[in-house]
């Protein structure tokens, strides 16, 4: 194709988008490496070869991989749901899947299964996510559109939340309560390569499904009827979104607990840079989510080593002020 065949606006747009992706990927890679090098004892690795090997491979590597995957899952799922519902306030938790995963994990702690065998905790989370996804689909009905789906998701989410507090309330002993609470706050501490093997295939499969929705989400910009006229199959889209979120966010929550605000904030942050087409936002949000979680986790280790501050708390602490800023910005744009 000759140079003249590609208009300048298109070249610029591709270049701008590519540079955003490149910057995000660069930040994610740097944060990933930093995550391998930074520990509670400072920067770098111990001199002792055997200890260094163990810390790197069995503690920091799983943590970094999970951080990248979980952040990516949350950012991607948030961008997909905001596109699907055409609402910038949508986030992965709306479908009730993370609530279900949290409930499953809390039940695993409550029943003592998690104490008996370590993987019962993430397994309970996965089971909870799967049940929540099925319940949402059943409740919404076969041909439901975005609105019914979200109503079903909110209902399941509240139910899972109520049962989670019930489990906390009926906790067999104070240690179990503390364990449940800390788990609910969300963390990447003390996760092993086994967690990676458990979560990675599911998160990647879910992300692959979610990444197929880009064009359908673009078409939805025009409303459901015009989108259908452009070849969009609404039922298939909904199924891919629920299945993809169940896999990606369900697995993420099952191994790391609930980490809020990433799925809400990251698409917002990136929209001014990649444009408002939902499809363009998907890969960028996945990278942005990964970068955000990795940076937050490294910052936590650098600035608050040995403290019990959890990752989910940090993301909420960053997320809530951001939200306030968003409100003020919107008000300024709409106001007199």
């Amino acid at each position, binding site marked *: 194709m000759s140079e003249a065949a590609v208009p300048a606006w298109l070249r610029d747009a591709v270049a701008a988008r590519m540079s955003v992706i490149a910057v995000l990927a660069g930040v994610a890679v740097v944060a990933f490496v930093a995550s391998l090098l930074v520990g509670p004892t400072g920067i770098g690795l111990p001199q002792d070869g055997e200890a260094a090997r163990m810390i790197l491979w069995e503690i920091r590597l799983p943590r970094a991989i999970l951080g990248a995957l979980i952040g990516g899952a949350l950012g991607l799922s948030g961008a997909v749901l905001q596109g699907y519902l055409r609402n910038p306030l949508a986030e992965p938790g709306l479908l009730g899947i993370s609530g279900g995963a949290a409930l499953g994990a809390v039940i695993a702690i409550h029943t003592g299964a998690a104490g008996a065998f370590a993987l019962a905790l993430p397994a309970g989370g996965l089971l909870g996510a799967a049940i929540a996804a099925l319940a949402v689909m059943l409740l919404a009905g076969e041909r439901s559109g975005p609105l019914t789906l979200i109503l079903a998701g909110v209902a399941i989410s509240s139910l899972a939340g109520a049962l989670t507090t019930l489990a906390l309330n009926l906790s067999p002993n104070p240690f179990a309560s503390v364990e449940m609470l800390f788990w609910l706050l969300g963390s990447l501490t003390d996760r092993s390569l086994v967690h990676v093997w458990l979560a990675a295939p599911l998160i990647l499969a879910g992300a692959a499904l979610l990444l197929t929705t880009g064009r359908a989400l*673009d078409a939805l910009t*025009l409303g459901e*009827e015009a989108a259908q006229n452009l070849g969009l199959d609404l039922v298939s889209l909904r199924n891919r979104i629920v299945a993809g979120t169940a896999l990606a966010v369900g697995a993420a929550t099952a191994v790391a607990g609930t980490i809020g605000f990433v799925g809400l904030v990251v698409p917002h942050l990136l929209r001014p840079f990649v*444009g408002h087409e939902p499809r363009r936002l998907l890969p960028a949000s996945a990278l942005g989510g990964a970068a955000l979680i990795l940076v937050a986790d490294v910052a936590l280790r650098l600035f608050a080593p040995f403290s019990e501050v959890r990752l989910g708390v940090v993301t909420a602490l960053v997320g809530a002020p951001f939200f306030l800023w968003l409100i003020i910005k919107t008000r300024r744009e709409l106001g007199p």
Partner: protein
Amino acid sequence: MSDTLSARGIGVRLGGRRVLRGVDLSVEPGEIVAVIGANGAGKSTLLKTMSGLITPGEGVVTLGGRSLAELDARSLGREIAYLPQDRTVHWPLTVRRLVALGRLPFRARVAGPSLEDRDAVEEAMAAMDVAAFADRAVTELSGGERARVLLARALAQRPRFLVADEPTTGLDPAHGLTLFAQFVRMAAHGRAVIVALHDLSLAARYCHRALLLKDGSTLALGTARAVLTPQHLAQAYGVRATVAEIEGRPVVLPIEPLP
């Protein structure tokens, strides 16, 4: 295989209410057909049914002899472009990107836009006179400008049948006329336009045929001249109207509601 978009014996129920009953309409290439009638007469439902968005409970819509239900959504989108009445755009896309959405039924799964895609987009923007603000966000435009952009999206599909639901609402007189000039051009190129309208003078002047609906049934179907009579308008809309000719063009003037 004939290239006719044909609705036969269409009956549609929405939420338990009977919206259409026994409606027939066949549209040939090269025709502009107006669908007219009072608010709630079933115009929009008929247009959606003929675009394959609603499966009728009774009757069948065929394209070239094949039922629309047999065609997959993407090939339907290459043949029939549907322009909804609702002009909501949910994200502040630029005009060019929004018009380019009209090429989605033609795009391979991962491929970028082809030269034909780009041609179709530029041509549609030129036809609807929106190229001047191609890089502005659609949400910043006025209502009439946005209506033209949305129409350009449908034109970018280069459809054999354009089904447009009240496309002239909110357009200034000049752009209303430009729009119908575009329809006439499309018809001359062997495409067909089905358009729901409330501007009866435009219907009388530009549409070859008209279907007049009342309470979901056909009140009249025929040439625009034969359908747009004072008697029919009184029955369909409950208005006293006069049909005149000014500078050789038909004008339909509603005068007063009938008691």
